[in-house]
């Protein structure tokens, strides 16, 4: 049975294990063409000449397209429209597309791409935040505000006055790197324009419904004539939220004379042209009272959005909103700037702006605790936000708030209690330490952009239950959970269930797979739809069994039972007597938002602030090798408040996955560029962790109940990513190694070891 709360296997597990699940990459329609883009290779410049004649003559080449072939606005984006489909005059990063080739084979495609002659006059490269903010910086987008796409301030209380009232005040500047999503399935899709002019596209996407509008606007197409199918993704993490191949592929299809076209970026192209997590610089001042009360935080956050906006402003807004941490903080002033550079384009990524500030606010908590001579966990506990209080951004927490409970449970964990003995037992040349972090992550779109979903469920003609999922499943398992929810309400086993993945013709607009919202919002809609279907089945059964009404019925596997008379009616029999339209139920849901005003919130038209937050407290036991600077994370523990757990296995997988990705962010992952040119060009030089680099990860659920959520849950897809970096940093700090720049590569840690005066290690210890 697909009951809620059961550790049932994923609905898609067998298909994936058997390799029968069709990802977008698996689709090779007959008579298909290949499309590929020529990338600028130069981070900043003026296009002087593009000569395609030689490329057009390559055997097997169908078309070579440039800017002049792009109808519509030629602008991609979905809040700011600033990214050309094909650059005409200006290139703003090395991965900009300047030409598009359609060919019969990959070989012809590669040859044609090499045969295009391109002359780009280089412009000075804006490769750092400082370079972008300099008075005489080249203006990348010609904004009146220079390279500052958006500057904003949010405030609670009076940070200046608050800091003056503090007994201890600490200051620090933190830096986080750009991070690559590194999903297994790189960006790809297939597209075709049919005889009636409809564009059909199957694409690895987190936002199939919104894609239609992005493609439509960029290419002057009618969105209602664009049909997008979104199969399971081989990973997304935010990197497929917003057009990747979509506009190029649609443009290619427009020149393919009805033939299908496939575009599939290889790893190098994905590294070059795909979106990244924003690199950030965060200047923090924080103060506390002698008794351990966190009192005031002032910060300046600069996010490097690279060449284009993508969701940079919204990402910065989330960073600002979370900059005071999951604490009851009376005074906060957060200033944010989202800055254009010629670096790779930054965009959405699991932990959306919050992963960055988590390092900073938790770093401040460690430093304040040290300055106060307080245990770092006690200090966090003392200030943890609880229900009914205003959070750091000024929003009253009216929903489940498990931060304190997560920290209490962590405090009782053996790894925390035994930390002194464990530390003292370090082998030669080794420093041992235990670090903690408290993190949170706003859920849903926030105010200004309705976070809605429309669910549909059908009793099929043969008496099966079919769920029409409208939100992409990129591996997080929401689709499987939807089946579980429907199974719970309709009391049906897996064998009776069917699942349709997002398809703009068959399923209904339900927002993107993002922001920890996928299960929450669609789930709420689905519960209503399933309840409506159930009630309908009872009423129709009443008709068939000549009883007064549907009140005496219960769902049983494969059918319904009339309890007073003990008579059963199979679903197939019910289906046979119902009109097809009658066998469908639909319902929708809107995530609630706060009606509270937040000072400075006016600066953001959408995405700010949030009302619902999952919370987590993490612990990392680490060893630092003094000879090499290598940091090994030996044990990891996560306590997560995601409300009620609907499937413990899916819950753990989300925690394990986000901790793994977060440890990569903490230790090795860094999109390196030099003067705007990518240096980590592949997975050999961009270093993600392997199974040997990851510790066993203990995941514990702290089950609060989220009354607004489906079966009491809230989304935990992101919060787990925010913990590892600050938890490892906290451990390093207690080992006398205060780190302000992530990742903690062996080089940086060795330098910190050399800086560390003998003795300070134990002093800084808790």
């Amino acid at each position, binding site marked *: 049975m697909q009951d809620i709360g059961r550790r049932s296997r994923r609905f898609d597990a067998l298909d994936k294990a058997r390799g029968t699940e069709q990802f977008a990459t698996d689709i090779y329609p007959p008579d298909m063409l290949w499309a590929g883009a020529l990338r600028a290779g130069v981070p900043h410049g003026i296009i002087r000449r593009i000569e395609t004649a030689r490329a057009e003559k390559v055997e097997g080449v169908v078309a070579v397209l440039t800017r002049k072939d792009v109808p519509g606005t030629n602008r991609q984006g979905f809040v700011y429209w600033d990214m050309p489909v094909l650059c005409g005059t200006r290139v703003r990063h090395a991965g900009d597309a300047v030409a598009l080739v359609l060919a019969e084979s990959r070989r012809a495609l*590669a040859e044609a791409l*090499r045969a295009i002659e391109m002359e780009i006059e280089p412009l000075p490269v804006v490769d750092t935040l400082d370079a972008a903010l300099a008075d005489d910086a080249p203006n990348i987008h010609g904004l009146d505000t220079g390279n500052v796409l958006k500057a904003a301030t949010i405030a609670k209380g009076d940070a200046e006055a608050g800091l003056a009232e503090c007994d201890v005040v600490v200051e620090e500047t933190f830096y986080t790197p750009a991070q690559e999503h590194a999903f297994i399935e790189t960006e790809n899709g297939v597209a075709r324009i049919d005889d009636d002019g409809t564009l059909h596209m199957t694409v690895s996407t987190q936002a199939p419904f919104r894609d239609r509008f992005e493609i439509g606007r960029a290419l002057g197409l009618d969105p209602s004539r664009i049909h997008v199918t979104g199969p399971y993704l081989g990973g997304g993490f935010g990197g497929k939220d917003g057009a990747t191949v979509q506009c190029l592929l649609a443009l290619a299809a427009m020149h393919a004379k009805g033939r299908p076209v496939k575009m599939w970026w290889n790893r190098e192209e994905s590294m070059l042209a795909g979106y990244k997590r924003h690199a950030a610089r965060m200047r923090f001042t924080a103060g506390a009272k002698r008794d351990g009360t966190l009192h005031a935080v002032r910060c300046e956050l600069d996010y490097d959005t690279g060449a284009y906006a993508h969701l940079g402003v919204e990402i910065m807004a989330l960073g600002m909103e979370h900059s005071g941490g999951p604490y009851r903080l009376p005074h906060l002033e957060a200033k944010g700037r989202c800055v254009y550079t010629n670096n790779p384009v930054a965009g959405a990524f699991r932990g959306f702006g919050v992963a960055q500030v988590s390092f900073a606010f938790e770093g401040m908590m460690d430093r304040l605790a040290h300055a106060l001579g307080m245990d770092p966990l006690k200090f966090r506990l003392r200030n943890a936000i609880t229900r009914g209080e205003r959070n750091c951004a000024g929003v009253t927490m009216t929903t489940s708030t498990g931060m304190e409970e997560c920290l209490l449970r962590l405090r009782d964990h053996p790894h925390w209690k035994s930390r002194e003995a464990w530390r003292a037992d370090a*082998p*030669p*040349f080794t420093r041992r330490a235990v670090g903690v972090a408290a993190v949170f992550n706003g859920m849903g779109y926030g105010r200004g952009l309705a976070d809605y979903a429309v669910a549909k469920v059908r009793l099929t003609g043969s008496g099966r239950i079919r769920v029409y999922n409208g939100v992409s499943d990129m591996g997080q398992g929401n689709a499987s959970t939807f089946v579980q929810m429907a199974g719970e309400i309709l009391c049906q086993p897996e064998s009776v269930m069917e699942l349709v993945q997002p398809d703009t013709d068959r399923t209904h607009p339900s927002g993107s797979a993002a922001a920890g919202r996928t299960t929450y919002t669609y789930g709420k809609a689905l519960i209503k739809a399933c309840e409506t279907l159930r009630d309908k089945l009872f009423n129709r059964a009443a008709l068939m069994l000549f009883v007064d009404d549907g009140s005496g019925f219960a769902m049983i596997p494969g059918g319904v039972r009339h309890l007073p008379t003990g008579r059963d009616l199979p679903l197939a029999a019910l289906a046979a007597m119902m009109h097809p339209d009658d066998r469908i139920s639909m319902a929708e849901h809107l995530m609630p938002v706060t009606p509270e005003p937040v000072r400075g919130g006016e600066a953001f038209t959408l995405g700010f602030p949030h009302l619902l937050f999952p919370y987590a407290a993490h612990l990392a036991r680490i060893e630092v090798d003094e*000879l*090499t*600077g*290598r940091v090994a994370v030996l044990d990891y523990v996560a306590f997560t408040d995601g409300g009620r757990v609907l499937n413990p296995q899916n819950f753990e997988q989300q925690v394990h996955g986000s901790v793994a990705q977060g440890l990569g962010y903490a230790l*090795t992952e860094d999109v*390196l560029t030099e003067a705007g040119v990518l*240096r*980590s060009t592949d997975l*050999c*030089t961009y*270093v993600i*962790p*392997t*199974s*040997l*680099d990851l510790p066993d990860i203990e995941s514990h659920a702290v089950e609060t109940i989220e009354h607004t959520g489906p079966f009491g849950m809230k989304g935990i897809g992101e919060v787990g990513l925010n913990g590892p970096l600050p938890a490892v940093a906290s451990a390093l700090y207690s080992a006398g190694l205060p780190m302000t720049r992530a990742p903690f*590569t*062996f*080089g940086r840690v*060795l330098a910190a070891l050399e800086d560390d005066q003998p003795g300070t290690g134990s002093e800084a210890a808790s």
Partner: protein
Amino acid sequence: MPLFLPTDLSETLALLADHPEARIMAGGTDLLVRLRAAGRTPGTLVCLERVAELGRIEALETATGPAVRIGAAATITDLLRSDTVRQRLPLLHRAASAFAAPTVRNAATIGGNICTASPAADTLPALHVMNASVELASRRGARILPMPHFVTGPGRTALEPDEVLTGVVVPVPRIFTIHHFEKVGQRQAMAIAVVSLTAMLAVEDGRIRDARLAWGSVGPTIVRCPEAEAILRGSRLTLTALTEAARAARRAVAPISDVRATADYRRQVAGNLLLRLADLPGRKPGS
């Protein structure tokens, strides 16, 4: 793209003699990566995977004592699974276990590792400290070269165009009591060495009778440091002696900065790694 799959050595040598443009492919884990990066399709390839005699690992007696002969096409997995290698050449076994990950180890060969001649090649330092020699063959005849004479620079070897590396002969180290290998990479698998240290020490009554040291990834080829070896010879495994040897080692290496690490880091750590050999309470030296 002609592809030849010879099944014995003489056929291989004939193919190489008749097709001067041909490239030898063993596991392809270097060759194919390089061809793809260059955007080239391979020309003529002579593959070694079916030449059984090139895949053998055998113990032998030579005039100078026991040795192990490893066929050039033995894979890294073959090395790991070989009892002979594990028992007699523990350093090579350690290097093999730190090599890439199982899938790559199943394809990658020791011959390919030697012929790629990368300063980061994981089997090379062990072969150097154990005074291994390589066997080369062509239709013109066979010859044997000591490792340092074969690998002449980064990516450069003494291999002639018509020659194939048939095997490597490794004298079994006898007097040595400590076999130490440490690879510093950016992660624990699928990592290119940023620095590595391979050390063999003969310790008798607490004193070092002989020491052989080799570093990977800190110079154009494997770096030896006779000065550091001399410092250790005759002394005990103390931090003082090792620190002095480390200083000599840092002078001997010639590292570069790249996307993985700075030259300074490599130099520093090349020395630091020696300290791991210290005889300290609570741990076995070299473990």
